[in-house]
């Protein structure tokens, strides 16, 4: 176990150290102490290492992550795991706005609640939220899966492309061009796998699936009110 104390180590030095880890490194386990809400912690990583951040983080923790597993024991500020490519990010507490924004791969697990715009413009990332999510989540979501074990706020999936949304609780409202869809066996299998990988116990049968109606994919004057 390697330890970096942000109370005494500059952010630049911490990120440079983690970014310098190679695929075959033996230093696979890292503890980050005293994050105290600092921004851009553990960004741009590209090695199969495990990083545990002991506390809460500011903006963009684990931004553009590749391969690494980043575990935040507290809560995360806006844009956690933004544009993640691969790997896993786990937040024990809550996540602020834009969690997993534009993510292209990997798994983001939020054990608490996620604020507004969770999964905005998601492009292949899988996001599992144990609690609730805020309004405008999965706005313009292009690909990937968003699983919500609690409730979803207003305008879920507005202007959605091909991202799949699964919600166990209530949905306050659906956004433009987002509709409820049939939950078929292959979707239950996707859901079961994601819940298992996230370490969350929940029955896939209790979820409902939402996706794009695909009516806004090409301009049609009859849909003008939705634009």
């Amino acid at each position, binding site marked *: 176990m390697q330890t970096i104390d942000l109370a005494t180590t500059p952010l630049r030095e911490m990120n440079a150290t983690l970014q310098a880890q190679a695929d075959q490194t033996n230093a696979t386990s890292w503890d980050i102490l005293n994050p105290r809400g600092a921004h851009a912690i553990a960004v741009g990583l590209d090695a199969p290492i495990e990083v545990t951040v002991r506390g809460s983080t500011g903006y963009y923790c684990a931004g553009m992550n590749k391969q690494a597993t980043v575990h935040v024991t507290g809560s995360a500020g806006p844009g956690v795991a933004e*544009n993640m490519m691969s790997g896993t990010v786990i937040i024990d507490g809550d996540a602020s706005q834009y969690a997993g924004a534009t993510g292209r791969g990997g798994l983001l697990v939020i054990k608490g609640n996620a604020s507004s715009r969770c999964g905005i413009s998601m492009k292949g990332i899988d996001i599992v939220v144990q609690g609730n999510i805020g309004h405008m989540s999965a706005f313009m979501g292009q690909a990937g899966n968003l699983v919500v074990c609690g409730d979803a706020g207003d305008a879920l999936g507005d202007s959605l492309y091909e991202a799949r949304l699964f919600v166990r609780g209530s949905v306050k409202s659906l956004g433009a061009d987002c509709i409820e869809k049939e939950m078929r066996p292959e979707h239950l299998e996707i859901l079961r796998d994601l819940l298992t990988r996230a370490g969350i116990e929940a029955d896939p049968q209790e979820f409902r699936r939402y996706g794009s109606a695909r009516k806004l*994919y090409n301009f049609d004057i009859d849909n003008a009110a939705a634009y």
Partner: protein
Amino acid sequence: MTTHDKRIPQTVPIQSATFTNPINAEIRRAAATGIYDIRGGGAKRKVPHFDDLLFLGASISRYPLEGYREKCDTRVTLGTRFAKTPIELDIPITIAGMSFGALSAQAKEALGRGASAAGTSTTTGDGGMTPEERGHSTKLVYQYLPSRYGMNPDDLRRADAIEIVVGQGAKPGGGGMLLGQKISDRVAEMRTLPKGIDQRSACRHPDWTGPDDLEIKILELREITGWRVPIYVKVGGTRPYYDTALAVKAGADVVVLDGMQGGTAATQDVFIENVGLPILACIRPAVRALQDLGMHREVQLIVSGGIRTGADVAKAMALGADAVAIGTAALIALGDNDPKWEAEYQALGTTTGAYDDWHEGRDPAGITTQDPELAARLDPVEAGRRLRNYLKVMTLEAQTIARACGHNHLHNLEPEDLCALTMEAAAMAQVPLAGTDWYPGKPGTGY
């Protein structure tokens, strides 16, 4: 006697200055289709521009430099504020961001070839970085846009600079669009979108709003790239003083300011023609913001939107810019709107010089298309050579003017070298109306 009696003088038919034929045609088109007009390019309306300024040249009080013997430097360094590796260019004319998707792969390659041969940079666009573009661009600026199509940390680290796009002159406050005709298999894959849809880009970034967030976003990008490359912030011409000041406050190395004449691949005509400022109105407020913050020349200013000639370059730099960017002019140099395609333009219902349906992907010149047969018409080597020639000519023109004004570097051009032909241009550029020592709004004049 009737009104048609030829024995009496007849009333001459008078066309309305308000309901002109183009306006009426647009009303009829809108009524028939139910959709606004979409097109490419920048504002076509006449606005105060560099043509409304003149250089004074040398006189008894200023002596010129010898045209072919005395050196006039054109080099510029961008990103000196924080980046470990600033961009060093031979000429202060860069190629503006244009996406693969909007342009063919051949066109992107040609831009890279031409820019590299001339010693300058080119820029990606709203579709990610292609290997062709990276491979042929000595200096490549990677745009960081609201859509984040194709965004990934590897390309981010492959870039020579990062340009965070907040807005562009053709549509400040609007997102991009790429219609289904141009969403080919490759474009769809790069953007993670279904093939053939009308793609809409977001108008603002998904994970930050406002200058305080921007400062943190810049920090994140610097941490990911090891503080190596410059970070530009590009804004459309709207509130140039405040936007420049806020970009500087957020930590930008370079501010890119794009006027309403700057082109877009596609957006609503009503947006292009009615939102934003001409670049002439933007430069002095932006420079004043930099000067007020003590950052003029430390944070570099690139301006764009309607730059066509070396005179435009020299005028922009005299007003305080460190460099310019060209987009539409570069496409014309490649072969866009070339008269040799007139028959095909006619078949598309347009004519040479007016073709702007770039979003439809049927460009006869093979530039704004994803159609393989049309794209193959553009030879990237030849087109790149034309762009290099054009960039060289612009540079020579700017040097000619600078020497005539007595300057041994383009950066030494100054507002005192200029006068204005119109009141509007005098007010916007804050240089005297020709033959006077006054411009509207001049401090201490009471006007």
